[in-house]
């Protein structure tokens, strides 16, 4: 059986005044049914761009999906006519975003915003839709859902709004949930609750999750597979146990060390250097300028992805030498 989601050679470019930004370049990965795949990387590495382009949600005009295929259940979403794509959005694939403060329409009640999806995809209207909305809110653990449906987003806390977003995303029992940093904007305690809820619902609905995050602790707890993005390219992918214990790319190793230092309370827990400007990508490996292991060939030529063990790939010439 094929995977639920198969992404092949996805490239997304932004036309800007200073030239073309290759935000995502030749990205391939798969998400199996019921699996959680984490997409990690620093800010600006192209995580959101990749996630949004799966459903062609990037703003039209400036952005262009330059190449690639995104197959959901074997259907290429990038080639789908708009009408059919809309039937996939919100029904087979649900999505939640980083900033729950901005993700809901401020002028409509949350009941109405949930019911909208129910009417569109399930044909539910009136009292039936309202009852279902209440049920969904209860399922995502929003207290007093009967009253909440009449409230507006500004009446709710960030955590509550993210739950409402989940109620909307899960309203039609999608096969895949795309969660773009769903907890980054929330308080630490609320973060844990929301993540636990995603896990719970995933098990209950049997859905797959593409979880975008830069928090490796979250990855460890929720994901089965990890994809590491650096400057728009996949630099490593593998099972979570492998990636987080025996990384094979210096960038992943750096992320891990940084995460450990951060956990120990050390404030200098950064990888030295900065991500190269998207307008001035080095000719070779994009990580070479920050890499302790970099040698001449790294700066001349981008290392290809190599399979090191079954299911574990990394884009580094010296992958075998990296100490855990």
């Amino acid at each position, binding site marked *: 059986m094929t995977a639920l989601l198969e992404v092949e050679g996805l490239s997304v470019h932004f036309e800007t005044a200073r030239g073309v930004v290759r935000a995502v370049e030749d990205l391939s990965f798969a998400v199996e049914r019921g699996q959680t795949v984490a997409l990690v990387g620093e800010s600006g590495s192209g995580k959101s761009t990749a996630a949004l382009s799966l459903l062609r949600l990037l703003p039209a*005009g400036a952005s262009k999906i330059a190449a690639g295929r995104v197959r959901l259940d074997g259907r290429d979403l990038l080639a789908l006519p708009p009408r059919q794509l809309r039937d996939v959005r919100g029904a087979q694939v649900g999505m939640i*975003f980083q*900033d729950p403060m901005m993700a809901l329409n401020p*002028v409509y009640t949350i009941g109405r915003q949930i019911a909208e999806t129910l009417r569109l995809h399930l044909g539910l209207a009136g009292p039936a839709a309202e009852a279902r909305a209440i049920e969904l809110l209860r399922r995502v653990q929003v207290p007093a859902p009967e009253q909440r449906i009449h409230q*507006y987003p*500004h009446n709710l806390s960030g955590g509550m709004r993210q739950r409402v977003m989940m109620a*909307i995303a899960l309203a039609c029992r999608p096969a895949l949930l795309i969660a773009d940093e769903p907890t980054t904007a929330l308080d630490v305690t609320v973060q844990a609750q929301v993540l636990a809820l995603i896990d719970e619902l995933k098990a209950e609905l049997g859905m797959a999750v593409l979880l975008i995050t830069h928090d490796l602790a979250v990855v460890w707890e929720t994901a089965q597979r990890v994809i590491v993005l650096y400057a728009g390219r996949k630099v490593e992918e593998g099972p979570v146990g492998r990636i987080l214990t025996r990384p094979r790319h210096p960038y992943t190793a750096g992320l891990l060390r940084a995460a450990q230092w951060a956990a120990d309370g050390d404030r200098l827990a950064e990888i030295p250097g900065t991500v190269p400007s998207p307008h001035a990508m080095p000719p070779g490996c994009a990580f070479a300028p920050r890499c302790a292991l970099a040698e001449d060939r790294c700066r001349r030529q981008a290392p290809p992805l190599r399979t090191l063990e079954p299911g574990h790939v990394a884009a580094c010439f010296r992958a075998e030498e990296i100490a855990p």
Partner: protein
Amino acid sequence: MSPTLAFLTRRLLQLVPVVLAIAALNFALLHLAPGDAADIVAASSGGASAEFTAELRASFGLDRPLHEQFVLFIGRLLTLDLGWSHIQQAPVLELVAERIPATLLLMVAAITVALAAGMLLGILAAMRHRGWIDGILSVVALVVYATPQFWLGLMLIVLFSVTLGVLPSGGMMTIATEMGWAARAADIGRHLVLPSLTLGLFYVALYTRLMRASMLEVFTLDFITTARAKGLSETRIGFVHAARNALLPVVTLAGVQIGHILGGSILVETVFGWPGLGRLVFDALLQRDLPLLLGILLVSSVVVVLVNLVVDLLYGLLDPRIVHR
């Protein structure tokens, strides 16, 4: 008392000092102008002697010190006595009351046309951003925006009344014809088309541009991406999700511009012979009818303040984040 009711009461109470201040300002401004009613009456009776003019002045109370005149004026105001027009030989309140419905009708029609059309065209232009519809609308809006109102009015008359002969060119109703109320309403409606278009078109252009810009800004917000991710059609996203948010700045501007529209109606009423306040202002100015002018200005400021209040309430209905306290 509900918060909205409390808000209303407070706003209405705030009206009192505002009206007094406007009255004081109007009074002062008009007294700064040379010449008064006595001069006018004297002049119109064919060059009177200085004694006669002084007598007139005394009989009008114009010889008293200014502050006394003002106190008397305010005192009468509080009993809704707006004074007596020496020129028209009638109470000011009566003159104003007679004319105000026509002006309100014209203004409401113009604002409705401007908001409805401006919103619709703005939404359309934004949804077809950089398409040919957007391009045509932008050019047309710019042309209308730059066209003088009186010229536009005259051209509309030439086109619809003279050339096509489908709409009346002036007045508010067909005079000296008996008709039922439905036919009368239709008759007034036909007379209303050209003046309200003339008055409203400038604002249609303005609101189209504003609505378009506002929509384009809303389109970049996160909840629009959420709406797309839900699978909604672009039409629904534009008209339901973006428009309601984009409307807010347009309504604010419309509220601020009420006074401006009232000013514009003076010109339009003159072009179309519309029997409203505008004509009255025009005549009062020419004849230096001080009490009448004061009365009209006061009443129009009250209208503007009241309409602003309505706009504030409307804004609260449109945006649930606004709570009137």
